[in-house]
């Protein structure tokens, strides 16, 4: 079966059987899918790239634990999510919240009329960096990735009620942090 047509489960089983090169198909499929999530969680594309790379390598190392190979995508997401949380905890220990100089995902050139919106965007990026990891996680999944609460619950294992509680606390915190910008 060709790499492009094979299911994730087919590829996982092939890799576990020793065909290491087939893992490149999974890397190609998922390298960018969660990049935006990681970038908004960590505040920069560089940090996101490190996290995605690390998650893909960790997933390979732990592939034998992927009990449902057809659900590799969701399993990889959880590895990346844990990696993002760990990075945030590390930064907190070191007294840093975001990568130096950002809020701050480089984007296309903006016209003058969009400068104010760009500043608000950067301010919100910095404010997201001051939320707790769980608050930022649910905010990014809902308002950046566009997922409904029940889908977030399915992916993360949290209940919808607890997700809403985190989100509502995040709204209040963001209101406080953004009061000079909105």
């Amino acid at each position: 079966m060709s790499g492009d047509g094979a299911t994730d489960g087919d590829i996982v089983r092939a890799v576990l059987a020793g065909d290491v090169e087939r893992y490149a198909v999974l890397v190609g499929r998922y390298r960018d899918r969660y990049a935006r999530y990681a970038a908004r969680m960590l505040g920069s594309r560089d940090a996101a790239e490190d996290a995605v790379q690390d998650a893909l390598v960790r997933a390979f190392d732990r592939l034998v634990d992927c009990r449902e190979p057809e659900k590799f995508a969701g399993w990889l997401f959880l590895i990346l999510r844990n990696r993002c949380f760990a990075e945030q905890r590390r930064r907190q220990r070191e007294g840093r919240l975001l990568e130096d100089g950002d809020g701050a995902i480089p984007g296309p050139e903006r016209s003058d009329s969009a400068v104010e919106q760009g500043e608000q965007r950067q301010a919100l990026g910095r404010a997201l960096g001051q939320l707790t990891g769980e608050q930022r996680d649910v905010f990014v999944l809902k308002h950046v990735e566009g997922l409904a609460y029940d889908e977030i619950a399915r992916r993360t294992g949290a209940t919808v009620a607890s997700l809403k509680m985190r989100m509502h606390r995040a709204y209040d915190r963001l209101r406080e942090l953004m009061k000079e910008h909105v």
Partner: protein
Amino acid sequence: MTTPYHGLVKRVLDGELTLADLPPELRAEGEDALRLLGAVDRAPVTLSPQLDARVMAAVRRHAQSPLRRAWRAVAAPREIELRLRIRPWALWGGALAAAAAVALLLGRPTTPGATPSVVAGVAARDSVFVRFVLYAPGAKRVTVAGTFNQWDQNAAPLVPAGTSGVWTTTLALPIGQHQYAFVVDGRRWVADPAAPAVGDGFGRRNSVVAVTTGARIL
């Protein structure tokens, strides 16, 4: 300290209500809240083209590590014919001998996580002793559940082999094909990566062992 958003405004942010659903005195607060969401950056993020090569280089390096190669040698599916002359007093002896061989094989676990293995010896005319082995360091309890015990999670506990993290049990299984999975600490189902697997119709995978009179190791 800024006043928290009103609960109805939060429902607007959640997409459950619209501005028009808010009472007039909350409209301004609702508009303010929606401006906040308007600043969310949803632009796609594309990572460096070199990322794939870096990941695959690391993967190849890890795949060549002695630990991983040793694990593959243990976990790779293989088939062994056992030629046994059946005598009643020899039945348990044969099973124990096979168990000892695998215990030696797994005596030095080579990778974290599950490293199960199945060993078979002929038990009787219509059944075969099958030894289940799982490497589960840190587990408090391990059982094996399958079609041979109606998926009863408590019917077949494994016992730890010392403090090595290896758990084992030997069961007499009827000749035929059986599906099974290990249950770690009563909640984590672990399929046997060294055995063939089939879907159970609910999105999970079950391991499969074929028990024949020419006892096989899968």
